[in-house]
């Protein structure tokens, strides 16, 4: 699928790659895929409760992005955030434990599925309210610019969030101040159950920034994503904000409570799997270039085992102690007392970012 552009020249659609790079893409995407499938099974087995939004189908978007940027660039996204944890250097165990609400989790079991963060590697979450992360992304980009860092903020959101007012406020500010912000719309064509054409007057999300240039990319093609994001990063550092629309697809429903088949046909989902699956695409390229299928079998087994081990370890983890409920509301509690449910029951709120007790 060729790039579509708005107010900018398209990057070249000739890409150079090699077996080693493609293998690294395959490994990461396959890991993401198995991880999300494991999360699905754990949810159905009731080890994971609450809300769980799976990313399978969309792996190429994140993998391509990570390939084009560094861990010093920032990423912020919505609640469909499990895979960002591993792409930003976290372990599968931390993710699984967080989903199960265990203290070994990425955010100590206190955030859950929608609130995964990684401070060291500049992953700002993991945000529950649709679209709320977009102005935050603009702010993060400003900080990068102010500090003179050669870094961008990748602000990810979906086609549903694209209709939120705060997105346009953020775009205006980013444009006004030439912020190194890359606004990535992961267009999986459905805002929960609503098809894009029923929610958006213009579903050409890459043009919705008006004065801000945009590129539409085949989000199921990891090489296209990498190429476009590398181009966008160079643009953003030199000139200012840019919007990217990733044409992608999620195999699961919006969340685990959505079967995903009431608003789209199984034929559509299957067609995506057979014709545009991002992992199969890379696998085919590798097979055609000398990698043995036995190698894939070995790799798949290894990755599956890693995920299974992480799931078992997460299951064996422990629940955070009650005392953590009162921690880290404020850095400076100022003698405040956090009242408990019982009259006369007070807890001094503790600032304890290490959660020592």
């Amino acid at each position: 699928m060729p790039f579509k552009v708005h107010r900018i020249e398209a990057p070249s659609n000739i890409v150079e790659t090699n077996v080693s790079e493609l293998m690294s893409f395959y490994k990461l995407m396959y890991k993401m895929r198995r991880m999300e499938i494991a999360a699905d099974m754990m949810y159905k087995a009731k080890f994971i409760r609450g809300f769980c939004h799976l990313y399978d189908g969309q792996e190429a978007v994140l993998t391509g992005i990570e390939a084009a940027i560094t861990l010093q660039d920032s990423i912020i996204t919505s609640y469909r955030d499990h895979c960002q944890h591993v792409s930003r250097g976290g372990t599968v165990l931390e993710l699984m434990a967080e989903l199960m609400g265990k203290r070994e989790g990425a955010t100590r079991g206190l955030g859950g599925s929608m609130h995964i963060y990684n401070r060291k590697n500049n992953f700002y979450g993991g945000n529950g309210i649709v679209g709320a992360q977009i102005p935050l992304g603009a702010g993060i980009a400003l900080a990068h610019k102010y500090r003179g860092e050669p870094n961008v903020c990748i602000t990810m959101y979906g086609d549903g969030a694209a209709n939120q007012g705060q997105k346009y406020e953020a775009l205006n500010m980013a444009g006004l101040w030439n912020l190194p912000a890359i606004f990535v719309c992961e267009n999986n064509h459905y805002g929960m159950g609503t098809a894009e054409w029923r929610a958006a007057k213009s579903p050409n999300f890459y043009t919705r920034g008006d004065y801000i240039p945009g590129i539409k990319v085949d989000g199921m093609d990891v090489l296209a994503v990498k190429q476009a994001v590398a181009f966008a990063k160079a643009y953003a550092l030199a000139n200012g904000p840019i919007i990217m629309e990733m044409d992608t697809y999620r195999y699961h429903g919006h969340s685990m409570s959505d079967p995903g088949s009431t608003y789209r046909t199984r034929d559509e989902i299957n067609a995506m799997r057979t014709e545009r699956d991002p992992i199969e695409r890379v696998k085919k390229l590798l097979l055609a270039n000398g990698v043995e299928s036995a190698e894939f079998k070995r790799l798949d087994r290894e990755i599956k085992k890693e995920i299974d081990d992480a799931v078992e370890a997460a299951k064996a983890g422990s629940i955070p102690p009650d005392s953590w409920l009162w921690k880290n509301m404020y850095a400076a509690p100022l003698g405040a007392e956090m009242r408990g449910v019982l009259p006369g029951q007070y807890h001094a709120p503790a600032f304890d970012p290490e959660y020592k007790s």
Partner: protein
Amino acid sequence: MAQADRSTPLAAEPLPGFKRLNLCNAVNDALTVALDTNDRAYVFGEDVSFGGVFRCTVGLLERFGKDRVFNTPLSEQGIVGFGIGLAAMGHTAVAEIQFADYIFPAFDQLVNEAAKYRYRSGGTFNCGGLTVRAPYGAVGHGGHYHSQSPEAVFTHVPGLKVVIPSSPAEAKGLLLSSIRAPDPVVFFEPKMMYRTAVEDVPEGDYEVPLGVARVVVEGGDVTLVGWGQQVLVLEQAAAQLRKADDISCEVIDLRTLAPWDFETVCASVSKTGRLVVAHEAPLTGGFGAEVAATVAERCFTVLESPPVRCCGVDTPFPLIMEPVYLPGVARVMDAVRGVVHF
């Protein structure tokens, strides 16, 4: 209107003129009646067309057509602002916000536009036809953004009415009153009860008056005040306290928080001399504070112990620690014992 005593099981069959419904069906019934009796009434919000994420709007599109029942994009501020405009033209706009947690982008519209419309136009304009419905409250696994109880912040805005039903029959009657009220209403539906609360609901068109509290259980030793899903917790606590401690609790369901029926509550406290208010929302600045302060002021000389609030903790709504956070039956019972043995 609701069953007098939820501890007794339902009869085998509903009486004639009643239908056994859960809270979500009752809301659906109310919306159907509202749209049936007023052809300038509209129901809109995210995903309402196919029936809504909680199935409260099932069948409405088929019955009333897409000009009156329609989806909006994912834009809470836009939904409420649009509803205010529609209501300003004299139409009845029933806007759904998918979860009360998402109401905040619309907070400015509600506080600054809807609440003050009649007042700032010298009475010439109003958006009384606006009703904003939103599911609220703990649901077992909702976490930070699917469990909040934001009712207190709306009670603090003169010009808005805030209504919260505690059972299916209450929900249908209160929603019809809210939709037909000549003032903008924010209507919070206890989402935990959508499926789990089942009751015999009167068929047809009826209203439960706004601004009138309901004495759910009569008693003489202490007044328990709550709303929404907390009322059931209070009823259960009252039943257990009667058995275990021989304490007789009077349980009051406020139903409307703004304006609230302080007369019924004060009359009860004059009888019992003791007050416990309970709500899921965090303690500080919660609506319990308003109730406690009013009772302290008006009933000072008849109080046997200070008014007490048994509420959620002053933290964001936790995920895995929900049972620690909520003012459940055991905690309410402890609070009651505290005021009785003061």
